[in-house]
């Protein structure tokens, strides 16, 4: 599997506090990579470095290399990086005053698309890819905030997909969802990897085991273990990983 994102010697700080230390790993194209670890271990910081979101926080900085298809993302315009590497957050955050249609079309419009039929096609394609089309096709002009939590999260995924990214970063996308909505997102992730490279941060170990091809375990900002998900959960190499995934962690 080709490498989509290559990370080398990546460290990140919030002011003087180092959040991640010297991370090196490859994210394979058309694979789902899960990042697990206890709260505060640097999971979110790591994925926020992958699309230059980390640097938007005051006093935050990062060092090291992140190559997207071999190109250093810190040498590309940040906007280009974020278009190619989309992100979905823990809490669904549709634009509250916008309709479902406009939420999905927002990214396309920001990129200068004004042609209505192209916008229509983009909205249709994205809502279908996010497995939401059938549920909202008759209410596209209604507010996105009126949808259920799970539908809002899929709307956010549709909005991220609309600008046709190559990579989708998901930061605990199911943590606020019930099991049925969670199952829909997990099904969606399974389908999305055919066309995208997916990186998911999750607190739910079973979710990582279900959706991810590879899993990385982070602890205190360091990459402890990174391998095929099945191997990591069946026979981890590191005692620390074993303790964490079996729940024997103080």
């Amino acid at each position, binding site marked *: 599997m080709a490498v989509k994102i290559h990370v080398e010697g990546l460290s990140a700080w919030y002011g003087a506090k180092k959040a991640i230390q010297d991370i090196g790993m490859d994210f394979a194209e058309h694979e789902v990579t899960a990042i697990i670890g206890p709260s505060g271990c640097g999971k979110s910081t790591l994925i926020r470095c992958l699309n230059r979101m980390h640097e938007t926080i005051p006093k935050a900085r990062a060092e090291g290399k992140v190559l997207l298809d071999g190109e250093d993302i810190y040498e590309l315009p940040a906007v280009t990086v974020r278009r190619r590497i989309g992100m979905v957050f823990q809490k669904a955050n549709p634009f509250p005053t916008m309709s479902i249609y406009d939420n999905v079309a927002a990214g396309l419009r920001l990129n200068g698309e004004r042609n209505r039929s192209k916008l229509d096609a983009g909205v249709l394609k994205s809502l279908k890819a996010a497995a939401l089309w059938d549920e909202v096709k008759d209410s596209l002009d209604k507010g996105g905030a009126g949808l259920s939590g799970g539908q809002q999260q899929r709307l956010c995924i549709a909005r991220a997909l609309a600008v046709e990214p190559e990579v989708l970063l998901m930061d605990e996308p199911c943590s606020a969802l019930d099991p049925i909505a969670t199952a829909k997102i997990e099904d969606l992730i399974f389908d999305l990897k055919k066309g995208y490279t997916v990186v998911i941060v999750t607190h739910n*170990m*079973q979710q990582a*085991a279900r959706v991810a091809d590879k899993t990385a375990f982070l602890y205190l900002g360091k990459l402890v273990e990174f391998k095929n998900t099945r191997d990591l*959960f*069946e*026979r*981890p190499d590191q*005692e*620390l*990983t*074993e*303790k964490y*995934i*079996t*729940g*024997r*962690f*103080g």
Partner: protein
Amino acid sequence: MPEAAERKALESGLRRLNENMATLAELSELAIRKAIDGLRRLDPGVADDVFTLDEEIYALQLEIESTCVDLLALHAPVARDLRTITTSLKITTDLDRIGRYAKDIAELTLQFHAKESDHARNLGSIPQMAEMTIRLVDRAARAFVERDAESVRHIEEEDDSVDLLHEQAFHEIIGRMKTGELDAEVGARYILVSRYLERIADHAVNIGERVVYMVTGERAPRIRAAARAKGDRA
């Protein structure tokens, strides 16, 4: 390294599982020891003990299965815990089968004539085979209880000797049946005893292979005896 946290319900379930597995292994081993003792001495009185043991083994196997299902469903175990539970599930079947073969040997013992004059001769290498088989079962069960992968890593090599003795017993008995020296029905029963012992040894090998996986996470490749003899061990 962070302090170990307790997972009380899981730990207590795993503890119960381990205790029951150790008991199951003891019962299976006892069943085969008793069955062989009864066979050697042509003592029909032992058979009842073996039948009772077989029932206890089956009941305990069901209890273990139910514990494993609960642990899997309630705790979604991973890593060593998962390997312990799935290995236990697999091994219970082997231990149950060993108990069933012990019962089968006890049933055959009942069919041998109490004053079978040629019994010792008819048994031939069977007692030796039984010793080796019991030793294999004991080693496999001990390896499980003590989580000792190394002691069973090459257990299949010892099974080759049991297989060889089974072959010998088979040809010896068939030879005597052909000449009319040994009644076909009686001879067939001795062959069955030999065959059951050979199968018990195979189950001991299964247990050994599973223990290696449980302890190390490695799945040992299965190599045919002929290839092993040629030194093709991976």
